[in-house]
């Protein structure tokens, strides 16, 4: 290491040496602050994960069963499935791997100033677009500015708000007649071109996770010549070319003929077949070898898949969950009722019944064991008598009657709800289940008084608490407000030192356990299925699929 380390890395290195910092968090921190991943693994005293299983073989076709969606506007993707189509042709600036460590992609190296306000991105110089042009800083800047423009409608905006984006009153009124807030770059020079292969992000405040944010799935780097649109024949820096795309039916990608800058691809052709949402159709297609992989497995098909000798189940623990969350209205306005709900739940049984044991039991607060700052504050044991007592104390000696809203997909959610409802019944919480189609649920998810809502995996515990439980946050679906919680959360967000953060996190978790608005039954593993002949594939916690890494060994 001849280069100078970021001061935070140096400090973290000392803490790590003193045993105060976990390897995983040190690794993540070092890499985010510009240490190359292999070097960071070395500093952490770990062997870099071996990526290859034997020598890759060339040739062949891989078919995956996944929804074939509209993919014409990459910057506004709101589904992982569309991003999984786009990413075969288009690259990201960075890539977060299955080990949660972010690595270079089109950005070869990055540096942050000590105050974390300015980030310098050094682009690769050896990347060409398939149509022959060289990839330069202008391409990167065009894409960054486009996703950060409010009018584009990209969810990337949320990640850069406060950093280089600032909110302002745009003079328009929203539907309710209130002044509407839009966002814009806080400074004309916020995204700055230094030279043809260097871009600077000049922020107004510190941000640690810029490299991770650059891998947010809609931030695919398009050729400016395509004007933000994507489709058959679109230019890209990626490993494949899209040659056929029929929404609802299939997509076909062929390997780039002039070679790919990043290693691979090994297969000649990658196809996506749309099998609909029906889980059993996916099994049928695997059984008759019409597809080699299924994008995401359904729990109801797992017993069958386990019997198929040519198929393997890929799974990884995540911070994915779904929470039974309440609004502060009767009967849930009393924290004792919310506690009763938690005491009445048997998380082990939910995990076993709804996920066939794939994952970990939840702990009724929203910080997962996979999060770096997770604090183990113990496991809440089911106690029906206590739940009944709490209900009686709250003035409901005969129990309560409530309705929970849930959606039918993915199927484990409805299973979990059914299991919990049976458990709650024993404590006198009689619950009706109201199932609505997913689309309808997402129109109402913040409005229903009692609902079961999916929460995706996010790398940091503070991120999820800030999104979902801070007073007034846009996704605070529980309308929950606790001044002490907010104060502690802000404190936690201010610590780079993970041990300090963990200490505060323990307090936050206890508050959630005591009076929080949610039941968190499980941390689920995500899983999918692939033919054993497919090598080089490892499931990503967000189920991102890169066909360039896989090969076939029959």
């Amino acid at each position, binding site marked *: 290491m001849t280069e100078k380390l970021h001061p935070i890395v140096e400090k973290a290195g000392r803490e790590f040496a003193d045993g105060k910092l976990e390897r995983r968090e040190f690794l993540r921190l070092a890499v985010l602050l510009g240490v190359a991943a292999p070097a960071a693994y070395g500093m952490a005293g770990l062997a870099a994960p071996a990526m290859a299983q034997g020598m890759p073989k060339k040739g062949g076709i891989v078919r995956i069963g996944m929804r074939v969606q509209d993919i014409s506007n990459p910057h506004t993707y709101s589904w992982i499935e569309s991003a999984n189509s786009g990413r075969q042709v288009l690259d990201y600036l960075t890539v977060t791997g299955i080990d949660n460590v972010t690595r270079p992609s089109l950005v070869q190296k990055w540096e942050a100033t000590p105050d974390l306000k300015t980030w310098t991105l050094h682009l690769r110089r050896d990347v060409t677009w398939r149509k022959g042009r060289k990839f330069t800083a202008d391409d990167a800047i065009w894409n960054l500015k486009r996703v950060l423009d409010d009018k584009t409608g990209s969810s990337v905006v949320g990640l850069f708000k406060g950093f280089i984006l600032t909110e302002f009153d745009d003079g328009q009124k929203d539907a309710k007649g209130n002044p509407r807030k839009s966002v814009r770059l806080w400074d004309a020079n916020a995204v700055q071109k230094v030279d043809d292969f260097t871009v600077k992000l000049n922020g107004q405040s510190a941000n640690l996770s810029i490299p991770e944010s650059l891998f947010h799935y809609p931030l695919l780097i398009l050729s400016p010549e395509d004007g933000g649109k994507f489709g058959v024949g679109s230019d890209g820096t990626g490993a494949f070319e899209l040659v056929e795309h029929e929404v609802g039916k299939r997509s076909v990608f062929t390997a780039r003929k002039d070679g790919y800058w990043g290693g691979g691809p090994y297969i000649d052709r990658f196809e996506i077949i749309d099998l609909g949402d029906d889980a059993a159709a996916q099994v*049928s297609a695997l059984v008759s070898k019409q597809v080699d992989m299924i994008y995401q497995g359904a729990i109801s098909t797992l017993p069958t898949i386990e019997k198929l000798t040519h198929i393997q189940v890929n799974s990884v623990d995540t911070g994915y969950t779904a929470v039974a969350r309440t609004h502060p209205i009767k009967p849930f306005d009393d924290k004792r009722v919310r506690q009763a709900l938690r005491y009445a739940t048997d998380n082990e049984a939910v995990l076993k019944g709804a996920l066939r044991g794939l994952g970990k039991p939840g702990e009724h607060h929203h910080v997962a064991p996979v999060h770096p700052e997770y604090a183990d504050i113990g496991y809440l044991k089911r106690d029906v008598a206590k739940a009944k007592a709490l209900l009686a104390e709250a003035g409901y000696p005969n129990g309560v009657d409530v309705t929970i809203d849930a959606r039918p997909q993915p199927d484990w959610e409805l299973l979990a709800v059914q299991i919990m409802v049976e458990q709650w019944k024993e404590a006198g919480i009689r619950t009706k289940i109201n199932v609505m189609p997913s689309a309808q649920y997402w129109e109402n998810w913040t409005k229903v008084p009692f609902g079961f809502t999916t929460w995706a995996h996010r790398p940091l515990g503070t991120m999820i608490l800030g999104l979902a439980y801070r007073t007034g946050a846009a996704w605070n679906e529980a309308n929950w407000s606790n001044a002490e919680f907010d104060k502690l959360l802000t404190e936690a967000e201010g610590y780079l030192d993970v041990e300090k953060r963990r200490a505060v996190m323990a307090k936050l978790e206890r508050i959630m356990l005591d009076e929080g608005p949610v039941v968190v039954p499980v941390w689920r593993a995500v899983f999918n299925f692939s033919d054993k002949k497919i090598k080089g594939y490892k499931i990503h916690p967000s189920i991102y699929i890169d066909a360039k890494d896989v090969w076939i060994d029959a």
Partner: protein
Amino acid sequence: MLRYSAKQLLNMALTLFAVSFLVFALNELSPGDVARKVLGPYASQSQVDYLTVQMGLDRPVLVRYAEYMGKALAGDFGDSVVFRQPVSALMFDRLGNTLLLAAISFAVIVPLSIVLGVLAGMRERGWFDRAVSVFSSMCASIPEFAMGVFLLGIFVVWLGWLPGTSPLRSDTGWSLWMQFVLPVLVVTFYDAGYLIAMVRSSMVEVMRQPYIRTALLKGMSFHGVVRRHALRNALITPFTVILLQLNYLVSGLVVVETLFAYPGFGRLMLEAALTKDIAVIEAGTLIAVSVTMLTQLFGDLGYMALDPRIRV
């Protein structure tokens, strides 16, 4: 007959108009969600507002309905919010697939039902009649999903003879016609079970008519009577019923299409309903209603042609 057709076509246009407004109004009771649907649950409200204005969704329902109808009459049915494609392109592709499945099934179901139905009804309560009756009731009583899952278990998992899904591509290791076998089989079992019963009842009724008895008493051979007198009359009632099957075969295949991942019209409509993809629901409903009404019209016309006693 010409006047009748003209009147019916006019009726049809009026009904279509009513249906289109009904569906539009039903789906517009809660507007403002379309932009949210396009951008997904994680977009900010200001982004949603931009798109709402951009798509013109902030205008009154009636204005949008008028605009929609204007465009629809010119053949433009708008864009699907979910698929983000012109509805017409999407619809005709899926409809084509469904028609193909329907045509093959029809070609199997109709001859099968007529032959079995006539043979059974010819000798009412004979052993063959009893066997066919029980068989057809059984078939018509097993829901398509149960039959489909059952056949999947046997032919795909256990025997491995047939492909489990029918994405209609011949390059996935199974020929196209193999992909049709299971869907057609499921549709046939369910629908033929019903049609056989219809043909049989009609045949039974005809065979009870006095003129058949008279012909038999006059010493004509049984088969001669059946061929020359009974057959034609016995097929008049089922004729309309048979035509009406086209309805089911166009709109009712949703279960089979879901089960076998068949990219057809029914599945498209199911997904559109679940995602409230208004443009697709609207166009699909209009198509389905037109098919229903056209088959009814043809049914009536054919009925008149077959049975000169009837004047509609």
